[in-house]
């Protein structure tokens, strides 16, 4: 008689691709279920876990990173293993995983940015905001990026939390940044920054801006940057005013109030100036003779209501030009297709139904393949939003297990998967290895009065582990 999968004698073996928050939430939901015996192997292409909590969340927002304590608890569960530095598609293929696991979950996030689609976008000095974020956070793939911080005027396109993080980091003093876990090389570069004026550009009005009230309040409390806004731009248009009143949305009413106060605030002679702009879209980046960004041409927008009442921007025929030498775009993100995994091009996500990966031809679920997080629904929400999202996927996984719809791997033993990884990527990093690196970083940071000093290259990390 064969023992059924999901019992202690034959645990359900799951591979999770991606060690960001979603991967940990999926692992947590899987391992906490008392009725099913589960073993989880988590793979990440980087040696370090936590995904964007380590490499996306701003260094001056340490409290948000506290969520990693919960991830460490999950990692300490029996049945959990981490294989850091193991790249899906390079070190292990889908066929390898099918031969070793009953279920596979893709939690790879939204790894690329949307383009603005305007002339001059690729001039020197125009960058995706995420590259700057990855750079100052010590992402091994971005540590060698160069940003021309000798420029005095910078535009950040977009008003989501990435855009707000970027303007804040640009406006902080070196002394403020020196108490964070910002990458050392980034701190050095920002010490020499000559940035004086930073524009934050929103295509819609203040009522539609994605930033939260705490985020916008923080921008008004920067020690060495004055905040400014155009009084006309922060006044609500009739459509926005009606929408705010109808929905009795107090948070948005408060946001507008904060912005109005900024528009009235006189400059106090701080060395930097942060300018909030609304209802404008870049239409062209203008280069100098050397092919570098020198200015940005903007069109003024107006709002119109769609049939559901949502307010969208529409270009007018009024244009203006602002001189800027550095541009960061943050106008949306999308997932990157994984080798052999069906992709939904329209939404930039893995083709799925509630987390079950679908066959693109039949639109029926593929046995044993799942997805969760941003690569499932698109980049939206805060870190915690991925928890209910992961729960939905895990519910599907257990439903499918109950009706026997799981893969039938040839090597379902934990030892076999371990052997596979050791063959393909001998320098993989285990969770214990990571905890050693973590302790090193924290100890190094303590000596400098910082939360940690990050190791920012794979070689450095392996050397620190004595390899």
């Amino acid at each position, binding site marked *: 008689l064969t023992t059924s999968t999901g019992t202690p004698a034959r645990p359900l073996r799951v591979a999770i691709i991606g060690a960001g928050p979603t991967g940990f939430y999926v692992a947590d939901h899987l391992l906490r279920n008392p009725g099913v015996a589960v073993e989880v192997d988590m793979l990440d292409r980087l040696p370090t876990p936590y995904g964007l909590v380590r490499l996306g969340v701003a260094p001056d927002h340490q409290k*948000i990173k*506290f969520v990693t304590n919960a991830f460490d608890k999950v990692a300490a569960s029996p049945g959990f293993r981490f294989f850091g530095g193991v790249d899906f598609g390079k070190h292990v293929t889908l066929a390898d995983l099918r031969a070793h696991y009953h279920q596979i979950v893709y939690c790879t996030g939204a790894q690329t940015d949307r383009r603005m689609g305007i002339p001059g976008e690729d001039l020197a000095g125009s960058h995706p905001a995420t590259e700057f974020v990855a750079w100052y956070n010590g992402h091994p793939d971005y540590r060698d990026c160069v940003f021309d911080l000798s420029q005095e005027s910078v535009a950040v396109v977009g008003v989501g939390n990435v855009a707000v993080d970027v303007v804040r980091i640009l406006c902080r003093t070196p002394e403020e940044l020196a108490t964070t876990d910002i990458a050392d090389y980034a701190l050095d570069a920002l010490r020499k920054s000559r940035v004086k004026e930073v524009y934050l550009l929103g295509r819609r009005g203040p009522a539609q801006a994605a930033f939260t009230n705490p985020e916008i309040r923080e921008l008004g409390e920067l020690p060495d940057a004055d905040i400014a806004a155009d009084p006309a731009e922060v006044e609500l248009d009739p459509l926005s005013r009606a929408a705010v009143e109808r929905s009795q949305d107090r948070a948005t009413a408060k946001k507008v109030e904060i912005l109005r106060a900024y528009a009235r605030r006189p400059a106090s002679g701080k060395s930097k100036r942060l300018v909030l702009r609304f209802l404008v879209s870049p239409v062209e980046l203008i280069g100098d003779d050397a092919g570098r960004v020198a200015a940005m041409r903007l069109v003024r927008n107006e709002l119109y209501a769609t049939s*559901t009442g949502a307010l969208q921007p529409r270009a007018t025929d009024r244009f203006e030009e602002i001189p800027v030498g550095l541009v960061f775009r943050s106008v949306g993100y999308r997932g990157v297709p994984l080798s052999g995994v069906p992709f939904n091009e329209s939404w930039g996500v893995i083709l*799925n139904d509630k987390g079950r990966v679908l066959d693109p031809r039949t639109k029926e679920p593929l046995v044993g393949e799942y997805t969760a997080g941003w690569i499932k629904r*698109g980049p939206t*929400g805060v870190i915690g939003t991925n*928890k*209910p999202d992961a729960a939905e996927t895990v519910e599907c996984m257990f439903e499918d297990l109950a009706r026997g719809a799981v893969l039938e791997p040839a090597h379902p033993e934990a030892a076999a998967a371990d052997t596979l990884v050791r063959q393909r990527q001998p320098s993989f990093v285990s969770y214990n290895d990571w905890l050693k690196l973590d302790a090193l970083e924290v100890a190094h940071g303590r000596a400098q009065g910082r*939360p940690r000093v990050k190791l920012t290259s794979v070689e450095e990390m392996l050397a620190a582990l004595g390899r």
Partner: protein
Amino acid sequence: MNIANILARKGSMAVTVRPEQSIREALALLERHNIGALIAVQGENPVGILSERDIVREAARNERFFALTVADLMTRDVITGQPHDDLLTVAHTMTERRIRHLPVVDKERLIGMVSIGDVVKAQRDHYQGEVDTLQTQLLAGESGLAH
């Protein structure tokens, strides 16, 4: 969060029907897909919506409702959503105007449908996530581990 984020994790397209099809055929579709509404299309263009309510209302007073066509019972003045419509506004409009199903169009082409159930679930997950994240930060503040 916007409508696109809801459609991204809904594998199935909206189930459609042609206006000239019979109510009997429409009922079979509702039953087969276990759904509450069909979108009537001409080509890829939505021209009406037929909900189980529309059929129940007619069945209560007309013994021969099976023989009617979709065009006879469908609602023609359809409110449609666009992928970038934000969730809060859509939730408000659907509640206020008592709409249970919202066809989603992109450049006049039908690309999916969201139900009030989808919207409520997305909103619930959104708030749950925010509460969770805020709690984590509060705990961080209390433990003094962060500065």
